[in-house]
Protein backbone atom coordinates (compact mmCIF):
# COMPACT_ATOMS: atom_id res chain seq x y z
CA UNK A 1 0.00 0.00 0.00
CA UNK A 2 1.40 3.43 -0.92
CA UNK A 3 1.72 6.33 1.48
CA UNK A 4 -0.81 9.14 1.19
CA UNK A 5 1.04 11.32 3.66
CA UNK A 6 4.68 11.52 4.71
CA UNK A 7 6.26 13.82 7.24
CA UNK A 8 10.03 14.20 6.98
CA UNK A 9 11.99 15.79 9.81
CA UNK A 10 9.24 18.26 10.64
CA UNK A 11 10.04 20.69 13.46
CA UNK A 12 7.90 23.45 14.92
CA UNK A 13 8.62 25.73 17.83
CA UNK A 14 6.79 28.51 19.61
CA UNK A 15 9.05 31.24 20.98
CA UNK A 16 11.92 28.79 21.29
CA UNK A 17 9.89 25.96 22.82
CA UNK A 18 9.95 22.93 20.55
CA UNK A 19 6.41 21.67 20.02
CA UNK A 20 7.39 19.19 17.32
CA UNK A 21 10.98 17.95 17.09
CA UNK A 22 12.41 16.44 13.87
CA UNK A 23 9.44 14.17 13.46
CA UNK A 24 9.02 11.70 10.61
CA UNK A 25 6.27 9.21 9.94
CA UNK A 26 4.08 7.97 7.12
CA UNK A 27 0.39 7.37 6.76
CA UNK A 28 -0.63 4.65 4.29
CA UNK A 29 -3.57 5.21 1.94
CA UNK A 30 -6.79 3.97 3.47
CA UNK A 31 -5.59 3.45 7.02
CA UNK A 32 -6.71 4.92 10.33
CA UNK A 33 -3.66 6.36 12.03
CA UNK A 34 -3.89 7.50 15.64
CA UNK A 35 -1.60 10.07 17.24
CA UNK A 36 -1.42 9.56 20.96
CA UNK A 37 0.64 11.07 23.73
CA UNK A 38 0.27 13.12 26.90
CA UNK A 39 -1.05 16.69 26.88
CA UNK A 40 1.48 19.02 25.30
CA UNK A 41 3.10 16.23 23.32
CA UNK A 42 2.61 18.23 20.12
CA UNK A 43 -0.29 16.30 18.62
CA UNK A 44 -2.57 19.22 17.78
CA UNK A 45 0.38 21.27 16.57
CA UNK A 46 1.21 18.47 14.20
CA UNK A 47 -2.28 18.41 12.68
CA UNK A 48 -2.07 22.17 12.31
CA UNK A 49 1.19 21.82 10.40
CA UNK A 50 -0.28 19.19 8.09
CA UNK A 51 -3.14 21.38 6.95
CA UNK A 52 -1.26 24.66 7.00
CA UNK A 53 -2.71 26.45 10.03
CA UNK A 54 0.87 26.47 11.39
CA UNK A 55 4.02 26.70 9.32
CA UNK A 56 6.77 24.20 10.12
CA UNK A 57 10.20 25.66 10.89
CA UNK A 58 11.96 22.90 8.97
CA UNK A 59 11.07 19.68 7.23
CA UNK A 60 8.84 18.58 4.38
CA UNK A 61 5.38 17.20 4.01
CA UNK A 62 4.53 14.98 1.07
CA UNK A 63 0.85 14.61 0.40
CA UNK A 64 -0.48 12.51 -2.45
CA UNK A 65 2.85 12.78 -4.26
CA UNK A 66 3.14 16.57 -3.90
CA UNK A 67 5.85 17.93 -1.63
CA UNK A 68 5.58 21.15 0.31
CA UNK A 69 7.26 22.90 3.23
CA UNK A 70 4.39 25.17 4.12
CA UNK A 71 0.90 25.31 2.71
CA UNK A 72 -2.03 27.70 3.05
CA UNK A 73 -5.06 26.09 4.78
CA UNK A 74 -7.24 26.85 1.77
CA UNK A 75 -4.75 25.15 -0.55
CA UNK A 76 -4.64 22.14 1.76
CA UNK A 77 -8.43 21.93 1.54
CA UNK A 78 -8.30 22.13 -2.26
CA UNK A 79 -5.75 19.30 -2.35
CA UNK A 80 -8.17 17.15 -0.37
CA UNK A 81 -7.23 17.52 3.30
CA UNK A 82 -10.26 17.87 5.57
CA UNK A 83 -10.30 18.31 9.32
CA UNK A 84 -12.38 18.70 12.44
CA UNK A 85 -11.50 20.80 15.44
CA UNK A 86 -10.75 20.05 19.06
CA UNK A 87 -12.83 22.97 20.24
CA UNK A 88 -16.16 23.68 18.70
CA UNK A 89 -15.52 25.61 15.52
CA UNK A 90 -18.89 25.23 13.85
CA UNK A 91 -20.72 28.06 12.14
CA UNK A 92 -22.92 28.39 15.18
CA UNK A 93 -25.69 30.58 13.76
CA UNK A 94 -26.22 28.33 10.72
CA UNK A 95 -28.27 25.15 10.55
CA UNK A 96 -26.77 21.68 10.33
CA UNK A 97 -27.47 21.56 6.60
CA UNK A 98 -25.94 24.99 6.03
CA UNK A 99 -22.82 23.93 7.92
CA UNK A 100 -22.47 20.86 5.75
CA UNK A 101 -23.15 22.91 2.61
CA UNK A 102 -20.41 25.32 3.68
CA UNK A 103 -18.13 22.29 3.93
CA UNK A 104 -18.75 21.72 0.22
CA UNK A 105 -17.46 25.17 -0.74
CA UNK A 106 -14.26 23.93 -2.31
CA UNK A 107 -16.33 21.89 -4.76
CA UNK A 108 -18.03 25.02 -6.07
CA UNK A 109 -17.39 26.01 -9.67
CA UNK A 110 -19.86 28.86 -10.29
CA UNK A 111 -18.79 32.50 -10.07
CA UNK A 112 -20.41 34.76 -7.47
CA UNK A 113 -22.57 36.42 -10.14
CA UNK A 114 -23.83 33.02 -11.32
CA UNK A 115 -24.58 32.14 -7.69
CA UNK A 116 -26.45 35.39 -6.99
CA UNK A 117 -28.50 35.60 -10.20
CA UNK A 118 -28.98 31.83 -10.52
CA UNK A 119 -27.78 31.29 -14.05
CA UNK A 120 -25.02 29.27 -15.71
CA UNK A 121 -23.45 26.70 -13.42
CA UNK A 122 -25.45 27.72 -10.32
CA UNK A 123 -28.45 25.44 -10.81
CA UNK A 124 -26.42 22.24 -11.22
CA UNK A 125 -24.16 23.29 -8.34
CA UNK A 126 -27.11 23.90 -6.00
CA UNK A 127 -28.59 20.48 -6.75
CA UNK A 128 -25.23 18.75 -6.45
CA UNK A 129 -24.54 20.47 -3.12
CA UNK A 130 -27.96 19.71 -1.62
CA UNK A 131 -27.82 16.06 -2.72
CA UNK A 132 -24.33 15.57 -1.32
CA UNK A 133 -25.15 17.41 1.94
CA UNK A 134 -28.26 15.29 2.48
CA UNK A 135 -26.29 12.14 1.71
CA UNK A 136 -23.72 12.95 4.40
CA UNK A 137 -26.40 14.10 6.85
CA UNK A 138 -28.20 10.79 6.41
CA UNK A 139 -24.96 8.83 6.68
CA UNK A 140 -24.25 10.40 10.07
CA UNK A 141 -27.89 10.06 11.18
CA UNK A 142 -28.35 13.81 11.48
CA UNK A 143 -31.57 13.87 9.39
CA UNK A 144 -33.77 14.88 12.29
CA UNK A 145 -31.58 17.90 12.99
CA UNK A 146 -30.92 19.07 9.43
CA UNK A 147 -32.85 22.32 9.91
CA UNK A 148 -31.67 22.93 13.49
CA UNK A 149 -29.31 25.79 14.25
CA UNK A 150 -26.15 24.05 15.47
CA UNK A 151 -25.74 26.11 18.65
CA UNK A 152 -28.94 24.45 19.89
CA UNK A 153 -27.56 20.92 19.56
CA UNK A 154 -25.92 18.87 22.30
CA UNK A 155 -22.14 18.72 22.45
CA UNK A 156 -22.00 15.19 21.06
CA UNK A 157 -24.26 16.12 18.14
CA UNK A 158 -22.10 19.17 17.40
CA UNK A 159 -19.03 16.93 17.18
CA UNK A 160 -20.94 14.86 14.67
CA UNK A 161 -21.86 17.95 12.62
CA UNK A 162 -18.19 18.92 12.62
CA UNK A 163 -17.40 15.50 11.15
CA UNK A 164 -20.20 15.82 8.58
CA UNK A 165 -18.92 19.24 7.53
CA UNK A 166 -15.38 17.91 7.08
CA UNK A 167 -16.60 14.85 5.17
CA UNK A 168 -18.86 16.76 2.79
CA UNK A 169 -16.22 17.60 0.22
CA UNK A 170 -14.98 13.98 0.22
CA UNK A 171 -11.43 14.61 1.44
CA UNK A 172 -8.69 12.10 0.67
CA UNK A 173 -7.22 12.67 4.11
CA UNK A 174 -9.30 13.49 7.16
CA UNK A 175 -7.67 14.95 10.27
CA UNK A 176 -9.73 14.50 13.43
CA UNK A 177 -8.62 16.51 16.46
CA UNK A 178 -10.01 14.73 19.53
CA UNK A 179 -13.35 13.76 17.98
CA UNK A 180 -14.44 12.09 21.23
CA UNK A 181 -13.28 14.68 23.75
CA UNK A 182 -15.82 15.31 26.47
CA UNK A 183 -17.97 12.30 25.57
CA UNK A 184 -19.08 9.51 27.87
CA UNK A 185 -18.06 5.91 27.15
CA UNK A 186 -21.23 5.14 25.25
CA UNK A 187 -20.92 8.22 23.01
CA UNK A 188 -17.24 7.40 22.43
CA UNK A 189 -18.11 3.89 21.25
CA UNK A 190 -20.72 5.33 18.90
CA UNK A 191 -18.33 7.93 17.48
CA UNK A 192 -15.65 5.28 17.11
CA UNK A 193 -18.09 3.13 15.14
CA UNK A 194 -18.94 6.12 12.90
CA UNK A 195 -15.28 6.84 12.20
CA UNK A 196 -14.63 3.22 11.28
CA UNK A 197 -17.64 3.33 8.98
CA UNK A 198 -16.41 6.51 7.26
CA UNK A 199 -13.08 4.82 6.69
CA UNK A 200 -14.70 1.67 5.35
CA UNK A 201 -17.49 3.23 3.24
CA UNK A 202 -15.61 6.15 1.68
CA UNK A 203 -12.07 4.76 1.84
CA UNK A 204 -11.04 7.98 3.58
CA UNK A 205 -7.58 7.93 5.12
CA UNK A 206 -7.86 9.18 8.70
CA UNK A 207 -5.36 10.68 11.11
CA UNK A 208 -6.87 11.22 14.54
CA UNK A 209 -5.88 12.40 17.97
CA UNK A 210 -7.49 10.69 20.92
CA UNK A 211 -6.66 10.34 24.59
CA UNK A 212 -8.65 7.23 25.35
CA UNK A 213 -6.05 4.57 24.62
CA UNK A 214 -8.53 1.73 24.91
CA UNK A 215 -10.66 3.20 22.13
CA UNK A 216 -7.67 4.09 19.99
CA UNK A 217 -6.06 0.67 20.07
CA UNK A 218 -9.31 -0.88 18.88
CA UNK A 219 -10.06 1.69 16.19
CA UNK A 220 -6.69 2.45 14.58
CA UNK A 221 -4.60 0.21 12.37
CA UNK A 222 -1.51 2.36 12.93
CA UNK A 223 -0.47 4.21 16.08
CA UNK A 224 2.17 6.91 16.46
CA UNK A 225 3.11 7.82 20.03
CA UNK A 226 4.48 11.27 20.75
CA UNK A 227 6.09 12.71 23.86
CA UNK A 228 7.62 16.18 24.12
CA UNK A 229 7.37 16.62 20.36
CA UNK A 230 9.35 13.46 19.63
CA UNK A 231 8.24 10.13 18.28
CA UNK A 232 8.36 7.45 20.96
CA UNK A 233 6.82 4.60 19.01
CA UNK A 234 5.29 3.92 15.58
CA UNK A 235 3.58 0.69 14.62
CA UNK A 236 0.49 -1.48 14.87
CA UNK A 237 -1.63 -1.31 18.02
CA UNK A 238 -0.09 -4.58 19.25
CA UNK A 239 3.46 -3.38 18.71
CA UNK A 240 2.73 -0.14 20.50
CA UNK A 241 0.93 -1.85 23.36
CA UNK A 242 4.01 -3.92 24.13
CA UNK A 243 6.61 -1.21 23.64
CA UNK A 244 8.33 -0.51 26.99
CA UNK A 245 9.06 3.14 26.06
CA UNK A 246 5.39 3.70 25.46
CA UNK A 247 4.42 2.15 28.73
CA UNK A 248 6.92 4.41 30.48
CA UNK A 249 5.98 7.58 28.63
CA UNK A 250 2.30 7.24 28.36
CA UNK A 251 0.40 4.13 29.13
CA UNK A 252 1.91 3.84 32.58
CA UNK A 253 0.91 7.31 33.66
CA UNK A 254 -2.40 8.15 35.19
CA UNK A 255 -4.71 10.61 33.43
Amino acid at each position, binding site marked *: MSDLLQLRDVSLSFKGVKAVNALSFSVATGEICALIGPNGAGKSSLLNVINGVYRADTGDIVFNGARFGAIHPQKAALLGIGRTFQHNALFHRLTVR*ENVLAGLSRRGTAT*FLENIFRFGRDGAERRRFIDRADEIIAFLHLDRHAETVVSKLSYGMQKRVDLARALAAAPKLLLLDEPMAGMNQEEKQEMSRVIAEVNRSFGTTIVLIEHDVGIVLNLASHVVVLDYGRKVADGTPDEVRNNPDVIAAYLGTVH
Partner: protein
Amino acid sequence: MPSGLLSRLDAPLLPIVAGLLVTFAVIPAMADDYWLSSIIIPTLVMGLAGIGLNLLQGYAGLVSLGSAAFMLIGAFSAYNLILRVPGLPLPLVLLISGLIAAAAGVVFGLPSLRIRGFYLGASTLGAQFFFEWLFSNFTWFSNDSQSLTISAPRLEILGYSLQSPLGRYFLAASVTVLLIGLAFLIVRSRLGREWMAIRDMETAASVLGIRVARRKLQAYAISSFFLGVTGVLWAFAYLGTSDAHTFNLDKSFQVLFIVLIGGVATIFGNFLGAAFIVLTPILLDRVVLAADLSFLGDQGALTNLQRIIFGAIIILLLIKEPDGLSALLRRARQAVRNRYAG
Protein backbone atom coordinates in the same frame (compact mmCIF):
# COMPACT_ATOMS: atom_id res chain seq x y z
CA MET B 1 -44.61 31.85 -15.67
CA PRO B 2 -43.86 34.48 -12.97
CA SER B 3 -45.13 32.14 -10.26
CA GLY B 4 -42.89 29.41 -11.68
CA LEU B 5 -39.95 31.76 -11.38
CA LEU B 6 -40.87 32.72 -7.82
CA SER B 7 -41.18 29.14 -6.70
CA ARG B 8 -37.78 28.43 -8.24
CA LEU B 9 -36.45 31.28 -6.09
CA ASP B 10 -38.32 29.80 -3.11
CA ALA B 11 -40.03 33.15 -2.52
CA PRO B 12 -43.43 33.39 -0.80
CA LEU B 13 -45.86 34.64 -3.43
CA LEU B 14 -48.60 36.15 -1.27
CA PRO B 15 -46.51 38.52 0.89
CA ILE B 16 -44.64 39.67 -2.21
CA VAL B 17 -47.82 40.55 -4.09
CA ALA B 18 -49.23 42.27 -1.00
CA GLY B 19 -46.01 44.21 -0.52
CA LEU B 20 -45.95 45.34 -4.14
CA LEU B 21 -49.60 46.41 -3.94
CA VAL B 22 -48.96 48.50 -0.83
CA THR B 23 -45.81 50.00 -2.33
CA PHE B 24 -47.15 50.90 -5.76
CA ALA B 25 -50.90 51.34 -5.21
CA VAL B 26 -51.88 51.93 -1.57
CA ILE B 27 -49.11 54.31 -0.50
CA PRO B 28 -49.27 56.48 -3.66
CA ALA B 29 -53.07 56.70 -3.25
CA MET B 30 -53.08 57.51 0.46
CA ALA B 31 -49.95 59.48 1.29
CA ASP B 32 -49.82 63.25 0.88
CA ASP B 33 -46.76 65.18 -0.24
CA TYR B 34 -45.56 65.78 3.32
CA TRP B 35 -45.63 62.09 4.19
CA LEU B 36 -43.95 61.13 0.93
CA SER B 37 -41.21 63.77 1.03
CA SER B 38 -40.44 63.90 4.73
CA ILE B 39 -41.12 60.41 6.03
CA ILE B 40 -41.59 57.68 3.46
CA ILE B 41 -38.83 58.55 0.99
CA PRO B 42 -36.12 59.02 3.67
CA THR B 43 -37.24 55.84 5.44
CA LEU B 44 -36.97 53.81 2.24
CA VAL B 45 -33.62 55.27 1.28
CA MET B 46 -32.04 54.96 4.73
CA GLY B 47 -33.43 51.43 5.02
CA LEU B 48 -31.62 50.66 1.79
CA ALA B 49 -28.41 52.08 3.26
CA GLY B 50 -29.01 49.81 6.25
CA ILE B 51 -29.20 46.80 3.90
CA GLY B 52 -25.89 47.89 2.37
CA LEU B 53 -24.12 47.93 5.73
CA ASN B 54 -25.99 44.88 7.03
CA LEU B 55 -24.72 42.73 4.15
CA LEU B 56 -21.20 43.65 5.19
CA GLN B 57 -21.57 43.65 8.95
CA GLY B 58 -24.48 41.36 9.70
CA TYR B 59 -23.82 38.68 7.10
CA ALA B 60 -20.08 38.81 6.40
CA GLY B 61 -19.10 39.89 9.93
CA LEU B 62 -16.95 42.77 8.70
CA VAL B 63 -16.90 46.30 10.01
CA SER B 64 -17.35 49.71 8.44
CA LEU B 65 -17.62 53.10 10.07
CA GLY B 66 -17.51 54.84 6.71
CA SER B 67 -20.82 53.88 5.09
CA ALA B 68 -21.63 57.49 4.18
CA ALA B 69 -18.41 57.79 2.17
CA PHE B 70 -19.78 55.27 -0.33
CA MET B 71 -23.13 57.08 -0.45
CA LEU B 72 -21.13 60.22 -1.17
CA ILE B 73 -19.25 58.53 -4.02
CA GLY B 74 -22.53 57.32 -5.50
CA ALA B 75 -24.13 60.77 -5.33
CA PHE B 76 -21.19 62.61 -6.91
CA SER B 77 -20.72 59.90 -9.54
CA ALA B 78 -24.35 60.20 -10.61
CA TYR B 79 -24.15 64.00 -10.70
CA ASN B 80 -21.09 63.88 -12.94
CA LEU B 81 -22.41 61.10 -15.14
CA ILE B 82 -25.59 63.05 -15.86
CA LEU B 83 -23.62 66.26 -16.38
CA ARG B 84 -20.87 64.85 -18.57
CA VAL B 85 -22.57 62.00 -20.43
CA PRO B 86 -25.69 63.56 -21.94
CA GLY B 87 -28.52 61.18 -22.68
CA LEU B 88 -27.42 58.46 -20.26
CA PRO B 89 -30.67 56.94 -18.97
CA LEU B 90 -31.32 57.15 -15.23
CA PRO B 91 -31.25 53.39 -14.53
CA LEU B 92 -27.79 53.21 -16.09
CA VAL B 93 -26.69 56.24 -14.06
CA LEU B 94 -27.76 54.45 -10.88
CA LEU B 95 -26.03 51.22 -11.93
CA ILE B 96 -22.73 52.85 -12.89
CA SER B 97 -22.70 55.04 -9.78
CA GLY B 98 -23.16 51.92 -7.68
CA LEU B 99 -20.32 50.19 -9.52
CA ILE B 100 -17.99 53.14 -8.96
CA ALA B 101 -18.79 53.03 -5.24
CA ALA B 102 -18.21 49.26 -5.34
CA ALA B 103 -14.73 49.76 -6.82
CA ALA B 104 -13.90 52.20 -4.02
CA GLY B 105 -15.30 49.70 -1.53
CA VAL B 106 -12.87 47.04 -2.73
CA VAL B 107 -9.92 49.40 -2.24
CA PHE B 108 -10.99 50.36 1.28
CA GLY B 109 -11.82 46.74 2.03
CA LEU B 110 -8.25 45.62 1.41
CA PRO B 111 -7.18 46.20 5.05
CA SER B 112 -9.78 43.60 6.08
CA LEU B 113 -7.47 40.93 4.68
CA ARG B 114 -4.94 41.79 7.40
CA ILE B 115 -6.74 43.34 10.36
CA ARG B 116 -9.90 42.59 12.28
CA GLY B 117 -12.53 44.06 14.55
CA PHE B 118 -11.99 47.43 16.15
CA TYR B 119 -8.87 48.24 14.15
CA LEU B 120 -10.65 47.50 10.90
CA GLY B 121 -13.33 49.97 12.03
CA ALA B 122 -10.67 52.60 12.43
CA SER B 123 -9.29 51.95 8.96
CA THR B 124 -12.72 52.32 7.34
CA LEU B 125 -12.94 55.74 8.98
CA GLY B 126 -10.18 56.62 6.54
CA ALA B 127 -12.66 56.31 3.67
CA GLN B 128 -15.05 58.67 5.46
CA PHE B 129 -12.51 61.45 5.89
CA PHE B 130 -10.74 60.93 2.57
CA PHE B 131 -13.82 61.20 0.37
CA GLU B 132 -15.35 64.11 2.26
CA TRP B 133 -12.05 65.92 1.75
CA LEU B 134 -11.78 64.86 -1.92
CA PHE B 135 -15.24 66.03 -2.93
CA SER B 136 -15.10 69.30 -1.04
CA ASN B 137 -11.61 70.29 -2.22
CA PHE B 138 -11.67 69.44 -5.88
CA THR B 139 -14.36 71.66 -7.33
CA TRP B 140 -14.38 69.77 -10.64
CA PHE B 141 -16.61 67.19 -8.97
CA SER B 142 -19.28 69.80 -8.24
CA ASN B 143 -18.91 71.40 -11.67
CA ASP B 144 -16.97 74.33 -10.12
CA SER B 145 -20.02 75.61 -8.30
CA GLN B 146 -19.22 78.32 -5.75
CA SER B 147 -21.10 76.60 -2.97
CA LEU B 148 -19.62 73.14 -3.72
CA THR B 149 -23.15 71.78 -3.86
CA ILE B 150 -24.66 69.40 -6.34
CA SER B 151 -28.29 69.80 -7.37
CA ALA B 152 -30.59 67.13 -8.62
CA PRO B 153 -30.86 67.11 -12.40
CA ARG B 154 -34.24 66.74 -14.10
CA LEU B 155 -35.11 63.18 -13.15
CA GLU B 156 -36.94 61.25 -15.80
CA ILE B 157 -37.39 57.72 -17.03
CA LEU B 158 -38.51 57.08 -20.63
CA GLY B 159 -39.63 60.67 -20.88
CA TYR B 160 -41.78 60.61 -17.72
CA SER B 161 -40.79 63.32 -15.31
CA LEU B 162 -40.07 62.23 -11.73
CA GLN B 163 -39.85 65.75 -10.30
CA SER B 164 -42.98 65.68 -8.13
CA PRO B 165 -42.94 64.09 -4.65
CA LEU B 166 -44.91 61.19 -6.11
CA GLY B 167 -42.44 60.81 -8.98
CA ARG B 168 -39.49 60.82 -6.58
CA TYR B 169 -41.34 58.30 -4.42
CA PHE B 170 -41.81 56.00 -7.42
CA LEU B 171 -38.10 56.26 -8.21
CA ALA B 172 -37.05 55.50 -4.61
CA ALA B 173 -39.62 52.73 -4.22
CA SER B 174 -38.74 50.99 -7.51
CA VAL B 175 -35.03 51.00 -6.71
CA THR B 176 -35.76 49.82 -3.17
CA VAL B 177 -37.91 46.92 -4.36
CA LEU B 178 -35.25 45.82 -6.85
CA LEU B 179 -32.45 46.03 -4.31
CA ILE B 180 -34.44 44.16 -1.65
CA GLY B 181 -34.88 41.38 -4.19
CA LEU B 182 -31.16 41.48 -4.96
CA ALA B 183 -30.31 41.36 -1.24
CA PHE B 184 -32.44 38.24 -0.78
CA LEU B 185 -30.83 36.58 -3.81
CA ILE B 186 -27.42 37.33 -2.33
CA VAL B 187 -28.01 36.07 1.21
CA ARG B 188 -29.62 32.90 -0.12
CA SER B 189 -26.77 32.11 -2.48
CA ARG B 190 -23.53 30.25 -1.86
CA LEU B 191 -21.93 33.68 -1.47
CA GLY B 192 -24.26 34.57 1.41
CA ARG B 193 -23.67 31.23 3.10
CA GLU B 194 -19.91 31.57 2.84
CA TRP B 195 -20.11 35.12 4.25
CA MET B 196 -21.95 33.79 7.29
CA ALA B 197 -19.43 30.96 7.65
CA ILE B 198 -16.58 33.48 7.67
CA ARG B 199 -18.51 35.62 10.16
CA ASP B 200 -19.09 32.71 12.56
CA MET B 201 -15.64 31.08 12.42
CA GLU B 202 -13.06 32.39 9.99
CA THR B 203 -10.38 29.76 10.69
CA ALA B 204 -12.78 26.90 10.03
CA ALA B 205 -14.01 28.61 6.86
CA SER B 206 -10.46 28.85 5.57
CA VAL B 207 -9.67 25.23 6.49
CA LEU B 208 -12.76 24.11 4.55
CA GLY B 209 -11.42 25.80 1.46
CA ILE B 210 -13.65 28.88 1.44
CA ARG B 211 -11.82 31.67 -0.41
CA VAL B 212 -11.90 34.04 2.52
CA ALA B 213 -10.02 36.97 1.01
CA ARG B 214 -12.07 36.98 -2.19
CA ARG B 215 -15.34 36.73 -0.25
CA LYS B 216 -14.40 39.63 2.01
CA LEU B 217 -13.60 41.90 -0.92
CA GLN B 218 -16.87 40.88 -2.60
CA ALA B 219 -18.65 41.84 0.62
CA TYR B 220 -17.11 45.31 0.55
CA ALA B 221 -17.89 45.66 -3.16
CA ILE B 222 -21.54 44.64 -2.87
CA SER B 223 -22.13 46.60 0.33
CA SER B 224 -20.63 49.69 -1.29
CA PHE B 225 -22.72 49.14 -4.43
CA PHE B 226 -25.89 49.30 -2.33
CA LEU B 227 -24.61 52.35 -0.45
CA GLY B 228 -23.60 54.05 -3.70
CA VAL B 229 -27.06 53.68 -5.22
CA THR B 230 -28.55 54.80 -1.91
CA GLY B 231 -26.42 57.94 -2.01
CA VAL B 232 -27.83 58.89 -5.42
CA LEU B 233 -31.37 58.53 -4.08
CA TRP B 234 -30.58 60.49 -0.92
CA ALA B 235 -29.06 63.36 -2.92
CA PHE B 236 -31.59 63.48 -5.76
CA ALA B 237 -34.84 61.81 -4.69
CA TYR B 238 -34.85 63.11 -1.12
CA LEU B 239 -32.73 66.23 -0.62
CA GLY B 240 -32.50 67.75 -4.09
CA THR B 241 -29.41 69.72 -3.16
CA SER B 242 -26.46 68.34 -1.24
CA ASP B 243 -22.73 68.64 -0.75
CA ALA B 244 -19.89 66.44 0.49
CA HIS B 245 -20.74 67.12 4.14
CA THR B 246 -24.27 65.80 3.66
CA PHE B 247 -22.57 62.42 3.88
CA ASN B 248 -20.49 63.04 6.98
CA LEU B 249 -19.59 60.81 9.91
CA ASP B 250 -23.01 61.49 11.49
CA LYS B 251 -24.64 59.85 8.48
CA SER B 252 -22.33 56.83 8.76
CA PHE B 253 -23.33 56.43 12.38
CA GLN B 254 -27.00 56.75 11.45
CA VAL B 255 -26.59 53.83 9.06
CA LEU B 256 -24.86 51.87 11.82
CA PHE B 257 -27.71 52.63 14.24
CA ILE B 258 -30.25 51.51 11.66
CA VAL B 259 -28.51 48.13 11.46
CA LEU B 260 -28.26 47.75 15.25
CA ILE B 261 -31.81 48.94 15.93
CA GLY B 262 -33.41 47.09 13.03
CA GLY B 263 -31.54 43.85 13.64
CA VAL B 264 -28.20 42.44 12.54
CA ALA B 265 -28.37 39.95 9.63
CA THR B 266 -31.90 40.91 8.55
CA ILE B 267 -33.18 42.53 5.36
CA PHE B 268 -36.56 44.03 6.29
CA GLY B 269 -35.31 44.92 9.77
CA ASN B 270 -33.33 47.75 8.20
CA PHE B 271 -36.57 49.52 7.29
CA LEU B 272 -37.76 49.26 10.89
CA GLY B 273 -34.46 50.76 11.98
CA ALA B 274 -34.75 53.48 9.35
CA ALA B 275 -38.32 54.29 10.35
CA PHE B 276 -37.16 54.60 13.94
CA ILE B 277 -34.31 56.95 12.98
CA VAL B 278 -36.58 59.08 10.77
CA LEU B 279 -39.71 59.12 12.94
CA THR B 280 -38.35 59.44 16.47
CA PRO B 281 -36.87 62.93 16.01
CA ILE B 282 -40.12 64.10 14.36
CA LEU B 283 -42.21 62.68 17.21
CA LEU B 284 -39.89 64.17 19.84
CA ASP B 285 -40.21 67.49 18.04
CA ARG B 286 -43.99 67.32 18.35
CA VAL B 287 -43.87 66.19 21.96
CA VAL B 288 -41.49 68.94 23.01
CA LEU B 289 -43.64 71.48 21.18
CA ALA B 290 -46.86 70.20 22.72
CA ALA B 291 -45.45 69.99 26.22
CA ASP B 292 -44.28 73.60 26.00
CA LEU B 293 -40.90 73.03 27.61
CA SER B 294 -39.65 76.52 26.75
CA PHE B 295 -39.08 77.20 30.45
CA LEU B 296 -36.15 74.75 30.23
CA GLY B 297 -34.19 76.98 27.89
CA ASP B 298 -34.01 78.42 24.42
CA GLN B 299 -34.43 76.59 21.10
CA GLY B 300 -30.82 75.35 21.06
CA ALA B 301 -31.17 73.80 24.51
CA LEU B 302 -34.39 72.07 23.46
CA THR B 303 -32.72 70.65 20.36
CA ASN B 304 -29.95 69.24 22.53
CA LEU B 305 -32.51 67.84 24.95
CA GLN B 306 -34.16 66.02 22.04
CA ARG B 307 -30.83 64.53 21.04
CA ILE B 308 -30.25 63.33 24.58
CA ILE B 309 -33.67 61.68 24.72
CA PHE B 310 -33.12 60.16 21.27
CA GLY B 311 -29.79 58.70 22.38
CA ALA B 312 -31.29 57.41 25.61
CA ILE B 313 -34.07 55.64 23.68
CA ILE B 314 -31.49 53.95 21.44
CA ILE B 315 -29.44 52.78 24.43
CA LEU B 316 -32.52 51.54 26.25
CA LEU B 317 -33.77 49.70 23.19
CA LEU B 318 -30.45 47.96 22.61
CA ILE B 319 -30.24 46.90 26.27
CA LYS B 320 -33.79 45.54 26.25
CA GLU B 321 -33.59 44.00 22.79
CA PRO B 322 -30.01 43.46 21.58
CA ASP B 323 -31.28 41.73 18.45
CA GLY B 324 -33.20 44.79 17.38
CA LEU B 325 -36.75 45.66 16.42
CA SER B 326 -37.10 42.76 13.99
CA ALA B 327 -36.52 40.29 16.85
CA LEU B 328 -39.08 42.18 18.94
CA LEU B 329 -41.58 41.96 16.10
CA ARG B 330 -40.89 38.26 15.54
CA ARG B 331 -41.53 37.52 19.22
CA ALA B 332 -44.70 39.58 19.24
CA ARG B 333 -45.98 37.71 16.19
CA GLN B 334 -45.12 34.40 17.83
CA ALA B 335 -47.01 35.43 20.98
CA VAL B 336 -50.11 36.35 18.98
CA ARG B 337 -49.91 33.10 17.07
CA ASN B 338 -49.58 31.08 20.28
CA ARG B 339 -52.57 32.82 21.80
CA TYR B 340 -54.81 32.07 18.84
CA ALA B 341 -53.44 28.57 18.38
CA GLY B 342 -54.00 27.72 22.04
